[in-house]
């Protein structure tokens, strides 16, 4: 954790975006609110995807499947057993956390970036295929519809709920990374053998990070399901994970603000150029390449890059 980030979180200018976000519903632009809710969901996904990636170096390619599992679980529970929506969402969170524990046990045994990437990818594919194949329960490719909503039709309460979830998740992420556990996780990512030799139970910590990361994906999935009212297996697609990865890298994976900035920027970019939607993967890919080649620290790293450049040119 660098000191710059600590400073950022204590600075007063943060009041301005917070106030803007709080007061935005007064404008009554439901289109913008919708867009922002999408941004909230994806920035939480990106931040928590980044959590194991940044600390342990675990690139979780099955990430989207947890997003989808949370959505399907809470939707099915709410439809079939008439469970109140709030409890269903918490259920989605807990259920993905439960799967995340097993998943964490699986991944924690592995060493090496590629093995983790492959295993998580195949695991995600298995979950996706199961959801597609279990037609009796999930209606397969047709997806679920008629999922009970959280609030009545107005979008403003959704917006505030989304904002709340967003802030809670980001603060959780921040607190986690700054806590002793977070620092231990960084140590494990740096040198696992060394961490073990210092008496750290690396297995436990790795499992914890992975569980935390997947459970928040599940939470966001449940929120999405009850916000939209319809879900399809496309939510579990590998492409979603890739998008989240791109948001992460473009924003800057070595900071907390990076994934958030990347998500807001890229989603608004894609939305602005919606009339040429076919080009959006090219835009994402090109953004990824430009960032990787020019500023490996992402958009967040640009100020640092500029100041370094200035010093060098002096």
């Amino acid at each position, binding site marked *: 954790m660098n000191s710059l980030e600590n400073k950022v979180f204590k600075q007063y200018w943060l009041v301005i975006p917070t106030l803007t976000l709080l007061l935005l519903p007064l404008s009554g632009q439901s289109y913008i609110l919708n867009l922002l809710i999408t941004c909230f969901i994806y920035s939480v996904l990106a931040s928590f995807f980044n959590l194991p990636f940044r600390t342990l*170096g675990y*690139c979780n390619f099955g990430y989207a499947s947890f997003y989808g599992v949370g959505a399907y679980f809470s939707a099915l529970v709410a439809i079939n057993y008439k469970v109140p929506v709030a409890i269903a969402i918490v259920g989605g969170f807990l259920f993905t956390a439960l799967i995340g524990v097993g998943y964490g046990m*699986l991944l924690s*045994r*592995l*060493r*090496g*970036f*590629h*093995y983790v*990437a*492959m*295993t998580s*990818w*195949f*695991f995600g*594919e*298995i979950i996706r*295929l*199961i959801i*597609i*194949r279990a037609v009796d329960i999930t209606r397969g490719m047709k997806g679920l519809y008629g999922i009970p909503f959280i609030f009545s039709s107005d979008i403003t309460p959704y917006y505030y709920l989304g904002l709340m979830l967003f802030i809670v998740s980001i603060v959780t992420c921040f607190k986690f990374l700054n806590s002793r556990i977070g620092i231990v996780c960084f140590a494990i990512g740096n040198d696992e053998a060394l961490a073990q030799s210092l008496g750290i139970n690396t297995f436990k910590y790795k499992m914890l990070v992975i569980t935390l990361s997947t459970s928040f994906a599940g939470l966001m999935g449940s929120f999405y399901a009850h916000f939209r009212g319809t879900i399809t297996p496309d939510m579990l697609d*590998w492409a979603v994970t*890739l998008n989240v*990865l*791109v948001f992460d*890298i473009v924003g800057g994976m070595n900071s907390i603000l990076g994934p958030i900035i990347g998500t807001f920027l890229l989603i608004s970019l894609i939305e602005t150029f919606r009339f040429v939607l*076919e*080009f959006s*993967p*090219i835009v*994402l*890919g*090109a953004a*990824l*390449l430009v960032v*990787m*080649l020019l500023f*490996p620290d992402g958009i967040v790293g640009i100020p640092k890059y500029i100041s370094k450049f200035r010093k060098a040119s002096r």
Partner: protein
Amino acid sequence: MFEQIFSLFLYGIALGGIYALFGAGLSLIYGVQDLANFAQGSFLMLGAYIAYFTINLLTHEPLTAILISFLLIFALGIIIDILLLDRIRKTSGERWLVPGFIVTTGVMLILDQLAFLGFGGQYRNVREFYPMILSIGGIRITFDRIFILIFTLCVFIALEVFIYKTKLGRAIRAVALNRDAANLMGINVSRIYAITFGLGVGLAAIAGSLILPIFSIYHKIGDETLTSAFSVVILGGCGSMVGALIGGLILGLLEAFTTYYIGSGLAKIFFFLLIIIVLMIRPTGIFGRRPA
């Protein structure tokens, strides 16, 4: 019954040969550069399109089409390596594992979508390479399956000869073993990396061309078969060509039989489970030589 099993077996072998080529390219790049090339599927797709258009517009000779496809993708691979990967290698140095894979992901996103914009989303296929039907002991089989198998074996023999008998192949092996030492011995490491990348994706292009009489191709064919390529590498071990061949054949046979007997969805689930179990028990792959 026997007829059924025999024709499934042939189908599995042909499919396995294609997967073996696809995975061998991935394995070669991985073995030499330590790079998981996520764009491998896109190169397979592009190779398939090039071969398709060559066969339909220029010539009906599949060998020429495969050669053209291989050469074009080989050149594209070298260009991408020089323009993108080489720079990342220079800036990130030893820790280029993650940045390198991210760059290939970006390449994959761009190439897939460009193919969609250029060729449209419709399915295309070539009915057959050679309109011949052989009959062995009363069982009728299309000649293409045999052709794919023979061609795959030839490519693998050529690859082994190239890697173990030529000077360039020796340089590639040296770089794979120890980059710095190879550099000190006067080997141009950047050049070797570029050639390896070109060769690896060129193998994917061959696999893509051979896929034409078996599958219909469209712009996402690469993504769908990418899991198979990685499975070949997992089964066969990184950087081992013989391993890739054996892994590919196992994979093809497994897919042919399980898909026929239990349906494609369930077959895929069992298959992914199997790969995860292999990864748990033997992370270096069944035939892997290099420690993790």
